[in-house]
């Protein structure tokens, strides 16, 4: 056994060394996870749901990610709606047999998904066609799209898809990439709750059901000019393509100010002639 252990030392050192670089790269990528969590929290506030998918070990990760949200391990954290599309052998094999494996997640997304939902796919290299097809479908449907990638899968594969958030594991080793993905989705879950519970979001009104013409409830922050301040922390703003009512409860906004509005809530005064 002593010999076995001696022989085992080099592989262990090598295994550790192989993990150091990607682990450090993840810390450098933390900002990407933060911005993704911010957008996800906004979607959950609009009653969006999380839909996850992946193949092979990533199918298991899709299930793990979903259960993090539906049944939080930290007591007191709110359950948020999430479903893995990779769990149901009858559904996956049925769709694969009927229309080919590439369609298994895209078809489920089209049938089960709604525009306010969040689609998270694992692009890990194994049969990624089904994941790419699903992300493209999600994008077409207006969902927030997120891809967890590994080196080799994020060039070219992701580029054509216009994915909102790409969260990379900077390694081509599929096992190490998976390890980084587990950390990414744990941190992501935690940050979604940080943002979800933040006053900016809890004060945000329910989803606007206009026909897509609403500028101020978009999921990206946009600058608008205040034209009228109303009671109850509300204001009328000029969006450049009309006027809309938003909340200015969190900022000191006056008529003439340009405010940054995110999900119907002004989150900063950028300046203007109101002061």
């Amino acid at each position, binding site marked *: 056994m002593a010999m076995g252990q001696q022989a085992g030392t080099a592989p262990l050192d090598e295994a550790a060394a192989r993990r150091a670089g990607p682990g450090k790269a993840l810390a450098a990528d933390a900002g990407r996870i933060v911005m993704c969590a911010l957008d996800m929290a906004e979607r959950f506030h609009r009653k969006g749901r999380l839909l996850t998918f992946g193949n092979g070990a990533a199918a298991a990760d899709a299930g793990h990610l979903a259960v*993090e949200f539906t049944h939080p391990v930290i007591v007191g954290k709110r359950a948020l709606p999430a479903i893995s599309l990779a769990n149901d052998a009858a559904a996956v094999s049925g769709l694969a047999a009927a229309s080919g494996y590439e369609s298994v997640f895209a078809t489920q997304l089209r049938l089960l998904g709604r525009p306010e939902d969040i689609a998270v796919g694992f692009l890990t290299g194994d049969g990624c066609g089904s994941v790419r097809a699903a992300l493209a479908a999600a994008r077409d449907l207006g969902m927030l799209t997120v891809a967890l990638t590994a080196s080799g899968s994020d060039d070219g594969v992701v580029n054509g898809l216009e994915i909102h958030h790409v969260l990379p594991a900077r390694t081509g080793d599929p096992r190490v990439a998976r390890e980084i993905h587990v950390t990414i989705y744990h941190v992501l879950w935690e940050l979604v709750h940080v943002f979800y519970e933040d006053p900016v979001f809890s004060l945000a009104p329910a989803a606007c059901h206009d026909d897509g013409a609403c500028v101020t409830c978009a999921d990206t922050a946009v600058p608008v000019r205040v034209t009228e301040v109303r009671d109850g922390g509300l204001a009328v703003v000029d969006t450049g393509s009309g006027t809309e009512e938003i909340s200015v409860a969190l900022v000191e906004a006056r008529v003439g100010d340009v405010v940054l509005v995110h999900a119907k809530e002004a*989150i900063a005064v950028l300046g203007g002639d109101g002061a």
Partner: protein
Amino acid sequence: MTGTLYPFLGTGQVTVEDVTRSSVEKAGESLALRLRVLEGLGPALAECADVLAAAFRSGGRLYTFGNGGSSTDAQSVAQLFLTPGADGRSLPAMSLTGDAALLTALGNDVDFDVIFARQLAALGRRGDIALGLSTSGGSANVLRGLEEARRREMVTVGFAGSGGGRMATEELADHLFVIPSSSVHRVQEAQTTACHVLWELVQRSPAGA
């Protein structure tokens, strides 16, 4: 506008900078724990790998199990042994967490505590391998699974966190790997690395040749 997109996010409660800083720290903790686990548990992982490689060589099968996130981690482990792609030899492995009919039947008709033990009683043979994952080391169904496996003279492998719980105090696994962290997330992350390295070592073990 170009500096940060959301300059006053949370109006004093949360800033993007704070959140980013804490995320950088968590990524650092995750890596540090992984490396500490490889250093501390590495020799035991290598020893376990030799035993598993010998078990596979003798026709043994690997059964993996856990709850919640650990149920999917169990699936990943089985999938890795079964279909490693070009990186390794396919070995017989299955997760005991994938069959909804069986799990709901046992959970509903008997008791949730027996969902793994009953499967091992039916499938397990002397020389097979049972690998249970529990971040607390106290999940009753995982512990009963390990007990049943030992009764059947299977090789038992346990992964736990938080001091190891009952899995450690009652010595329910021949090969026990306790991740030194009380964070469920960090434990799962380091367990993932430990399982992957265990697989790498099984693939290289001379005992499997």
